[in-house]
């Protein structure tokens, strides 16, 4: 084994790991004992690995992440499904009492309409794969129904005049979201997101709530058991009209 071969074997060697039993590494380690330059290089590389691992282990984790994950789980499979009713009621009371006592100390769970709006704008702004490419609204609705996403939604005024390009099933905290895509004809897209009203803690009222998020203008409202969000370029007339 020459100097370079030994270096190659030692580069990926982490002392104290099972790899020490590897014959090539054992040979390279032996060689490092006889070759001061190789030994120096190996010691330096090991210290480099340790320093880097330590730095990465120090990455701080957002305070509300765990709560957000656990809250999502509660939506996916509510605990009371598996518990006697009285126990669930008692648990709810305890939770409410705890919440009221420690409300201001709790990290905010990102389940508000403003969070939903930001998340959906991000979905629209990123590259996405069209789950169903079609200009047939019925086909989109049937597809959404098959995927468990809201399907019997009503198009906002003016949208029917745009060119429908297809639909994507997205997700919001465990709830399927129907994303319907329209082409304005000038290479600009307008998106309609529909989710169950109960999926959003403070779903907007029936009158449209307009807000600019990043480069997109959004308009949100609720109708029946659904919450709608329309997002598109600022100069979209359909957004100004609201629902």
């Amino acid at each position, binding site marked *: 084994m020459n100097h370079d071969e030994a270096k190659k074997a030692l*580069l990926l060697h982490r002392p104290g790991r099972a790899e020490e039993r590897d014959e090539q590494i054992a040979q390279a380690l032996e060689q490092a004992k006889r070759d001061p330059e190789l030994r120096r*290089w190996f010691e330096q590389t090991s210290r480099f690995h340790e320093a880097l691992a330590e*730095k*990465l282990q120090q*990455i701080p984790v957002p305070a509300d992440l765990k709560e957000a994950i*656990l809250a999502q789980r509660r939506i996916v499979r509510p605990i009371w499904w598996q518990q006697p009713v009285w126990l669930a009621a008692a648990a709810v009371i305890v939770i409410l009492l705890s919440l009221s006592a420690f409300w201001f100390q709790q990290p905010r769970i990102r389940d508000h309409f403003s969070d939903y709006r930001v998340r959906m704008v991000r979905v629209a702004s990123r590259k996405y794969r069209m789950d169903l490419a079609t200009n047939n609204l019925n086909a989109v609705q049937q597809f959404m129904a098959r995927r468990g996403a809201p399907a019997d939604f009503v198009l906002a005024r003016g949208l029917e005049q745009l060119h429908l390009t297809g639909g994507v099933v997205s997700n919001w905290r465990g709830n399927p979201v129907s994303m319907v895509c329209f082409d304005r004809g000038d290479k600009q897209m307008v998106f309609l997101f529909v989710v169950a009203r109960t999926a959003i803690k403070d779903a907007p009222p029936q009158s449209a709530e307009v807000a600019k998020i990043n480069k997109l203008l959004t308009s949100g409202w609720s109708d029946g058991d659904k919450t709608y969000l329309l997002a598109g370029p600022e100069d979209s007339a359909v957004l100004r009209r609201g629902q």
Partner: protein
Amino acid sequence: MTDELDFEGLVNLHYVSLYRFALSLTRKESDACDLTQQTFYVWANKGHQLRDVSKVKSWLFTTLHREFLETQRRKTRFPHYELEEVTHELPNVEPELVNRLDSSAVLSLLAQVDPIFQAPVALFYLEEYPYKEIAEILTIPMGTVKSRIARGIAQLQAILAKTAETTRGLRKPTA
């Protein structure tokens, strides 16, 4: 399986390391949070399909990586590098250079490494997984894992050396 494992216990055990791995891939806190949440969401729905309890951690890392790739929708085929090509590229980097950086600076360095090497290198440093497990998580052969880690480390050291050189150059007093 999902019923056997306490969900909150599972989150407690793994969400920190999953988040750090996600951040090493996305470099954006919000994206890393989304990926971590999505991973546990997938677990809540499909975790019961996993028969071997000892594989839960690998399963979560595999899922997170798959979800990341899904969001990236990469179309390019990744080249395969041989380990033989690496040794001559390794600059001498003082470990003290790393010690002077904070974790976000180290993440920025990692972000400059070729994307194909980032996940193997992050798993190598973050979790100190055996190569066999990294290969399982990333669903690539073990030889490829080793070559990608080696190439990633070489790039990381080169970037670090260059950064240190630039910093030294900037600090030179003018005559």
